[in-house]
């Protein structure tokens, strides 16, 4: 396949890490491109993360994560404002059920003060806890309150970053799985993808679970990416307000136990299992995980949890970095963000489950520190525009605003998804911004994300996708790669069968 682009920096992978980095790069006079192997950005790890922005309670042996979580958290307000992405600092209540756990909370409180986590408070007055979170278990005896903990929409953040980066000149190639990388004599690269080659001076390898395979293409086998699988459940927004904060249990000494959290869309998320699948792409849910762990543990935190309001159980896999040592690959808790040992002009970036919150700081680190240290010159653009406008959400507008949109374009008066009140106007806008699949539309507009889970909207959205993209319905996929929504036209099978029998006569 021929050369399709020639750039200064090529970013591989359209998750939150890659998206944050291309957007940061787009501030400078550089030619930048991103390649994504899926049909759309944010179709991998980021889509199925827990959507929490950590306050940065320091953990042991993870200096990079500690530093970037704190910095990333601080950057979140401005970033989400610029990109028109929902973000709320709901605060976290990390709870203790007994005196042993209370001692662990005291340790974390101390670490927070040393680490500079703002506003931390250890609450041992149960009445106060109950006042903050009326539905919390009466068995909770204390809580470590971190007011800066936030919730975000991870996919809206990625769409926002990418749209803004594109506005500032970055080029995006989807369905572009990287097949080969050639290091040329001058140290630059020719990257061969499914859709064409890209010549690039630098590469940022943010390919998530594919990052180790990408690195191997240039002979770097210094790390391996394994997975932790986390199963979670989304509960209907009619129960909005059941919890106001992220309510989280301890996991031994760690702060990452089971949780009940509000989401930016008003529904409730509970989780999560900690599993180690052999296949990093295996995101199946299990009966043991959902019924045996997620639900009972969430009920320990909030006994009145309305499990009958379940909308969607799902699982997400998060990457873990394993570094090569003499005794084989060894798991590290931290992120991996550094130039490759095989070629310093390829930067490996692998984040873990907390990555969404750290990504803004990781992007600055990669762009302002690491890349210049290996020779990239940065000249700020005169006309960088940091703003991106989200797709208007019909459900959240006033009646006057709705009427105004409909007056301009009557498609805004056609409600396609009833549970989330999404109009044809939003669907068409999502397609204009790059959605080519049902999930692409769904994650940009929330169509099909409500309680009927696509029962009502799906045939209608398929029809709109078909019309706007000019492709037949039976060629439209859920999420690319053979995930067809319908397989045949009516009578196609019957006609084929008849043809078959005719030929036998």
């Amino acid at each position: 396949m021929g050369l399709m682009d020639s750039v200064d920096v090529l970013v591989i992978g359209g998750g939150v890490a890659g998206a944050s980095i291309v957007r940061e790069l787009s501030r400078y006079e550089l030619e930048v491109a991103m390649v994504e192997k899926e049909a759309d950005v944010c179709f991998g790890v980021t889509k199925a993360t827990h959507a929490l922005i950590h306050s940065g309670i320091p953990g042991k042996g993870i200096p990079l994560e500690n530093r970037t979580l704190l910095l990333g958290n601080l950057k979140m307000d401005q970033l989400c404002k610029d990109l028109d992405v929902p973000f709320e600092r709901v605060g976290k209540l990390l709870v203790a059920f007994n005196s042993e756990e209370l001692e662990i909370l005291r340790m974390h409180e101390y670490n927070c003060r040393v680490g500079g986590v703002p506003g931390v408070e250890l609450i041992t007055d149960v009445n106060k806890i109950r006042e903050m979170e009326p539905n919390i278990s009466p068995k909770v005896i204390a809580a470590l309150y971190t007011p800066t903990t936030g919730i975000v929409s991870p996919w809206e953040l990625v769409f926002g970053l990418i749209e803004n980066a594109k506005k500032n000149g970055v080029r995006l190639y989807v369905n572009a799985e990287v097949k080969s990388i050639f290091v040329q004599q001058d140290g630059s690269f020719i990257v061969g993808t499914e859709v064409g080659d890209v010549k690039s001076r630098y590469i940022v390898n943010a390919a998530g679970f594919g990052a180790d395979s990408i690195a191997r293409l240039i002979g770097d086998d210094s790390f391996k990416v394994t997975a932790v699988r986390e199963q979670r459940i989304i509960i209907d927004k009619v129960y909005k307000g059941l919890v106001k904060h992220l309510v989280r249990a301890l996991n031994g000494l760690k702060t990452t136990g089971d949780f009940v959290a509000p989401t930016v869309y008003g529904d409730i998320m509970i989780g999560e299992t900690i599993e180690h699948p052999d296949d990093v792409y295996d995101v199946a849910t299990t009966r043991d995980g959902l019924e045996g762990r997620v639900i009972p543990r969430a009920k320990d935190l909030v006994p009145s949890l309305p499990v009958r309001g379940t909308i969607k159980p799902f699982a997400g896999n998060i990457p873990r970095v394993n570094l090569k040592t003499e005794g084989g690959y060894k798991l590290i808790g931290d992120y991996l963000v550094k130039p490759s040992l095989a070629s310093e002009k390829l930067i490996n970036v692998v984040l873990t489950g907390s990555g969404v919150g750290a990504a803004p700081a990781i992007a600055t680190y990669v762009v302002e520190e690491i890349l210049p240290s290996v020779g990239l010159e940065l000249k700020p653009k005169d006309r960088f525009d940091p703003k991106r406008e989200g797709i208007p959400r019909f459900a959240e507008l006033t009646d006057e605003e709705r009427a105004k949109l409909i007056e301009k374009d009557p498609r805004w008066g056609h409600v396609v998804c009833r549970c989330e009140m999404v109009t044809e106007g939003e669907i068409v806008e999502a397609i204009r911004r790059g959605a080519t699949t049902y999930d692409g539309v769904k994650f940009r507009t929330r169509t099909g994300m409500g309680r009927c889970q696509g029962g009502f909207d799906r045939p209608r959205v398929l029809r709109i996708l078909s019309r706007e993209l000019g492709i037949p319905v039976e060629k439209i996929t859920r999420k690319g790669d053979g995930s067809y929504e319908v397989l045949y036209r009516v009578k196609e099978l019957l006609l084929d069968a008849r043809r078959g029998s005719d030929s036998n006569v």
Partner: protein
Amino acid sequence: MQEGEVIVMSRVLTKSVDVVVLGGGPAGLGAAIRAKEVGSRSVLLVERAEELGGVLPQCIHNGFGLHYFKEELTGPEYAWRLIKKLDKLGVEVLTHTMAIDINADKVVTVVNRDGVIKIKARSVILAMGCRERARGAIRIPGDRPAGVLTAGTVQRLINIEGYLPGERVVVVGSGDIGMIMARRLVLEGAEVAAVVEILPFIGGLIRNEVQCLRDFDIPTYTSHSTIFIHGRNRVKGVTITEVDRKMNPIPGTEKYIECDTVVLSVGLIPENELSRQAGVEIDPSTGGPVVDEVFQTNIPGIFAGGNVVHVHDLADYVTESAEIAAENAVKFAQGQQVVDDTTRVFVEAGENIRYVIPRYVSKSRPASFYMRVSWPLERAVIKIGDIVKRRFPFVRPSEQVRIDVPVEKMKKIEGERLVISCEGTEVIPR
């Protein structure tokens, strides 16, 4: 006001009517027709789809109208008869119009391609019908590929849109639409590899079990649960397992069935998001509004009819119940009293009764009780307090029971509570 100042009038349109009906399916059509017939001056019907009929246009099978029209019709024919009547009576209709809000003052906000309209009504009839329970609600574990669809969505895809979802299908659950779609899929050239039902008996009507499953030799697995859906991109198969009486999987009985499509028929839920916005009280046993014998909700002037109240077996019954709601909605709009508050009785579901409608009756009025049992029984006796005792050769959860009680008997109710219960012989052990 200064000269040259531009005054922007509100873009939101307003409208006033006596009766507004939300939903244009078998309930809404019936209600709008009846409201006009009994003399309402202005009736407005609001329907979100492009055409009237609700789910009926996609129900191309027969079995409709035997009770209501005294002849057997298909869904589209049943709808067409009602639509013709509606046209003749001159009911005002807004199609392609979504009601997005109702408040307790009976102001209904709707949107369509013309804009946003606030409709002030004297009475409101909720006729939004029901929706299907999706995969998430019953938490079937496994991968999350394309090709898992509810039966009603499949029905729409095949009968309206013209697409066949796949060629080898497993139907999970055995509700009526699931069984009807199993037959439709076979007729369209697909293979139905299995119908899997977690209960020890079929969920839908006997006539559908016979005409759709047995007549087409479709393998049926009762007391089986679907414990895993396989396939990363598109469905590749399901694992099913036998379950014990407590519906827990029995280890060692797992069976893998290859398929490219999973069709869910695992229950219908009355659609009451709008009702909740208005403050209508919802009965957890039905998922529908708590109604009295005239199908009025807890909010005076807001009535409900058809599947929005509870899920009926037949469209005929849906239309009938909406007619009662309509007659009383018109009376209310005209300022007449519709219930006797002085002799109110609260109705409760007792032994082996899953739910009963209405939840409030008056001792001074005749009443019709609609109910479903929780478990199939033979030689069953249903008791309405101490006033009525009715014998049935058998009762099944899939078949709704209706008992009419004349006013003489209603007068005999003592106290303010009426318990309905059912006893009999368990043929299938519980």
